[in-house]
């Protein structure tokens, strides 16, 4: 592969995803991580904001750590489509030459990232959960140059069964898509003002421009489970859609939210936006109740970072007990309502 002049590439860049002119949470998470990486590299964090009439979002990016904001504002970019966005981001990369380019591993980023990485001819590591600065190879090998200040990108593979740490030593930018819900935002710097650089590469529609005929938004009044402090999550063992009522009661008394495993979504008991796991969302609440969830590796991949995990399952060999802080072997139909009642009583006593 043709290698580029690595010395020219500087700075940590973040694709600041926005949808409906609202900054996505992942953009702020990437800025938080980007700031940390930039500090190690003694460089700056730049947000790349692409859209139409989105200039007023720039200050928010500054509040969350962006030293600079590159703004591509064009009517073609009003709603996400692969081509105008790929052209915009690839043009920014070619013009500004970032050392690191981070993109959220969202339904947008997992389309934009690979298209852009192929266009600028560099590597891309998907769905990263850990990003660090370090040496490649990790340990010096005689006869091989050890490069310093490399982006080391760690990601799960084989459905979460293995993890790999990947580097992109000979090409720039070093590109990664990053799983939402894993990196931490910084506390906002109130009143920060963005240093905005406007950049428009020009857009000429070609065969790659698709036409959006219709936009159909899911009707959902549920809380985003990624933001919940307490999650009461149910699996196949709950038995039916109706029986989720006992989980909802528990969630209510705790001020929590109900989530679920993939089996529950596949059975049609709960909508997909409540699904935790490899093909659902990654969550890290303060307390995660795994109720009637066996703990398939794909599920565990999405919740194991929770501060405290309480599992209730009648099968004493269920793998969920391998990650639970407190595991209770027993009948959820008896334990969950009794727990709800007891917590209610505790609450009443305190008042």
């Amino acid at each position, binding site marked *: *592969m043709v290698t580029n002049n690595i010395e020219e590439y500087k700075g940590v860049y973040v694709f600041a995803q926005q949808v409906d002119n609202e900054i996505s949470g992942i953009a702020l998470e990437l800025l938080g991580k980007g700031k940390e990486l930039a500090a190690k590299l003694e460089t700056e964090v730049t947000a790349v904001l692409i859209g139409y009439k989105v200039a007023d979002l720039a200050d928010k990016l500054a509040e969350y750590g962006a030293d600079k904001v590159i703004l591509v504002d064009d009517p073609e970019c009003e709603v996400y489509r692969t081509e105008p966005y790929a052209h915009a981001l690839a043009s920014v990369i070619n013009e500004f030459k970032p050392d690191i380019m981070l993109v959220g591993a969202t339904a947008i980023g997992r*389309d934009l990232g690979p298209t852009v990485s192929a*266009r600028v001819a560099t590597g*891309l590591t998907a769905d990263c959960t850990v990003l660090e600065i370090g040496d490649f190879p990790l340990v010096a090998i005689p006869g091989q140059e050890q490069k310093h200040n490399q982006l080391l990108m760690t990601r799960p593979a084989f459905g979460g069964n293995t993890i790999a740490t990947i580097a992109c030593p000979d090409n720039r930018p070093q590109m990664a898509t990053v799983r939402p819900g894993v990196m931490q935002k910084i506390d906002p710097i109130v009143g920060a003002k963005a240093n905005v650089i406007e950049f428009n590469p020009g857009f000429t529609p070609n065969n790659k421009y698709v036409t959006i005929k219709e936009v159909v938004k899911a009707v959902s009044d549920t809380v985003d489970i990624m933001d919940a402090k307490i999650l009461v999550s149910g699996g196949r063992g709950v038995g039916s859609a109706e029986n989720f009522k006992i989980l909802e009661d528990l969630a209510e008394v705790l001020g929590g939210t109900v989530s679920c495993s993939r089996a529950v979504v596949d059975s049609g008991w709960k909508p997909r936006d409540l699904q935790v796991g490899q093909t659902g969302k990654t969550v890290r609440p303060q307390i995660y109740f795994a109720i009637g969830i066996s703990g398939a590796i794909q599920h565990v991949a999405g919740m194991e970072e929770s501060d405290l995990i309480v599992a209730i399952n009648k099968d004493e060999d269920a793998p969920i007990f391998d990650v639970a802080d407190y595991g209770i072997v027993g009948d959820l139909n008896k334990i969950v309502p009794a727990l709800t009642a007891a917590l209610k009583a*505790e609450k009443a006593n305190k008042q």
Partner: protein
Amino acid sequence: MKIVVCIKQVPDTKGGVKFNPDGTLDRGAMLAIMNPDDKAGLEAALRLKDQYGAEVTVITMGLPKAADTLREALAMGADKAILVTDRVLGGADTWATSTTLAGALRNIDYDLIITGRQAIDGDTAQVGPQIAEHLGLPVISYAQDLKIDGDKVVVQRMYDDRYHVVEAQMPALVTALAELNAPRYMTPGGIFDACDAEVITWGRADLKDVDDSNLGLKGSPTKIAKASDKVRKGAGEKVAPDSAEEAVAYVIGKFKEKHII
């Protein structure tokens, strides 16, 4: 209409994950299957064949044993199968894989290329869009529905909280979600015919407009620094109380200990 479906043979990680005594993945004990998203893509192509009489070609890059997965596709109803296999292609990351497949696809006439969104072993979702980029095609990722309207493909493109109905001029590339459909089974006649059907084998020399420096392990810009089995957080306590009351007392006790309540 000519459709090419890119498929991959993968170890079945869903449910049937097996470990060696030392905790590493026992790949030999795991079933090799057609990647689920790819299978949905194949089914979508076969439905278009049923409807419009399309010619469906399946292609894979892999070891010689990946021919088994191509035969499964033939038994489901694909017309032609191509195996891209060569020692120099091994160890490829998504850049090198997409470069290879694009090199093979340049030899084939197509109106539509369908790939799965992602394979369950790598989970990257990168190869489809990267093939489109190498071939200069429009790409529509994450398809949960797919129709043909004249010389255009019309796709329901999934996002986190919505979908877009998107129309692209063919030739185009679409990446399929497993949710797209329920793939058909192989037919007995199909299995019988597939045993005898020819799987066309291509090697490095058959790839068109591809530079050696972009192939295989050497042509991969991403390099593995370290790979390991996931170290899981250790198990905490596990109790098996005799009654619900005892279970509740246990949880309440722990929550008080942790000052949660």
